[in-house]
């Protein structure tokens, strides 16, 4: 009997979805708009995240070792800094490479190169670029380097102090952007869900008389709810598919726009690379949204 009941519920839901075409269409369209908003918010999140990571990756500090620093001492510092959990990666440049870099950088400046040649000896020390996982962690890293090599003449200088204000400001901006982005995403999703829920509630309001008749002929609450929940699931699946279709040209356009604006992530590429996950997410979101809204909306009229 259970299988018969499930079969009847699904059939009624499909028939109701089809026969109440205009109500279904309206619900699907509103739900599609909801899912598009959610997707766009997701896209904005991706862009924001990538941009912030991009900016973050451009921030680093340089540690300059003294010209006469012992190689063992330098190696010791490089090794221990590399092992720090706050450090994302480091780039070590030895004395000779530092000189080569310097020469390359000043290849058009004959006067400087001449002065360098006259010195004879390599006046430059080794250096190490350090990138932290989070910009707020530079202070800790710098303190560690100063403690381990600053006093015994191994480390000449660290350019952190000159850039401290800029780095701190950037760290603040990144944290604030993340918080703001999260709040905006939560707000838009909340509003969209609310709109969808109300649309479905309105759609089911049209059927309130039917619901009371169904109750009067002795149909159980689950038997009445079933077809409405099935229709809600249908709204969700159709909206998910429609949203994927609409997102195709939108992401293409956003991809072109992001290229023009110099944003590193191409949203069209992102859409193509993640279309399966995106479709899964949208269809499941729509399905849950439709089923839950219908379930709750019918409850209101199941009182007699």
């Amino acid at each position, binding site marked *: 009997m259970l299988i018969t009941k499930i079969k009847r519920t699904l059939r009624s839901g499909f028939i109701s979805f089809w026969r109440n075409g205009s109500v279904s269409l309206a619900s699907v369209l509103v739900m599609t708009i909801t899912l598009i908003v959610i997707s766009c918010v997701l896209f904005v999140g991706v862009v924001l995240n990538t941009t912030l990571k991009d900016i973050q990756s451009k921030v680093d500090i340089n540690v300059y070792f003294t010209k006469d620093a012992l190689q063992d001492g330098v190696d010791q510092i490089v090794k221990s800094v590399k092992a720090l959990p706050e450090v994302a990666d480091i780039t070590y440049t030895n004395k000779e490479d530092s000189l080569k870099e310097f020469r390359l950088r000043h290849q058009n400046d004959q006067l400087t190169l001449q002065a360098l040649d006259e010195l004879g000896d390599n006046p430059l020390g080794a250096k190490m670029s350090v990138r932290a996982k989070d910009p707020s962690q530079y202070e800790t890293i710098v303190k560690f380097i100063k403690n381990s090599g600053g006093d015994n003449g191994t480390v000449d200088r660290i350019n952190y102090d000159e850039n401290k204000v800029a780095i701190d400001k950037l760290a603040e901006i990144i944290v604030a952007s993340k918080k703001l982005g999260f709040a905006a995403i939560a707000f838009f999703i909340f509003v969209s869900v609310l709109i969808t829920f109300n649309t479905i509630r309105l759609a089911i309001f049209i059927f309130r008389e039917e619901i009371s008749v169904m*109750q009067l002929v002795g149909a*159980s609450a689950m*038997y009445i709810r079933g077809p409405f929940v099935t229709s809600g699931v249908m709204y969700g699946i159709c909206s998910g598919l429609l949203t994927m279709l609409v997102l195709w040209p939108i992401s293409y356009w956003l991809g072109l726009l992001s290229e023009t604006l110099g944003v590193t992530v191409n949203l069209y590429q992102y859409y193509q690379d993640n279309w399966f996950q995106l479709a899964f997410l949208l269809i499941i979101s729509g399905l849950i949204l439709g089923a839950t809204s219908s379930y709750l909306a019918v409850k209101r009229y199941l009182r007699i």
Partner: protein
Amino acid sequence: MLLDNVSKIYKDGSLALDGVNITIKPKEFVSIVGHSGAGKSTLLKMILAEDKPTKGKVFFEDIDIHTLNRSEMNDYRRRIGMVFQDFRLIPNMTAYENIAFAMEAAGRTDEEIAADVPHVLELVDLKKKMHNFPSQLSGGEKQRVAIARAIVNQPDIIIADEPTGNLDPVNTFEVIQILKKINDLGTTIILTTHNKGVIDSLGKRVISVEAGKIIRDDKSGKYLL
């Protein structure tokens, strides 16, 4: 069916029923008459457990129906067939599907549904229109579908609330004849109506209600208000 000293006072303070006592025996045909606002609809709501009485009890086979849980209530309602003035058919279901729904709700099998629905539609002379939607039927036809839906589960009682209110004299006559036939087959009928001609032609028990009270209960009555 027994209504024991039933009173109903609505939230706005209006007294809809005032100490009503009625006993309805099996296979009886009872008409309830009264002016608009006399309390007829409230009385039916009490019997259907659509609303609870402020005072008193409603018994069906010795069980106070207002103490039933949801599942028992569904079972109880399946033993009552309802016919309304405004038909209350489900608009996006065909005549066949409207009747089949009542059977599905009662847990009947697909085979039973396939056998009984055409049969019951034949009884109300609507077999040819079984796949029509309510919007494609006339008032009389809609009411006949509603009657078919009410009787398909072979209920103990049929409650017909102003079933002829929206019908012309020919359809009124037909609907009453169908109800009489159902009663002859052993189903209790509770009918409310404003139609004097219908009551007078029936020659069955008539309960007159006024201001929420029973003012007359005649075994073979006339429409007297």
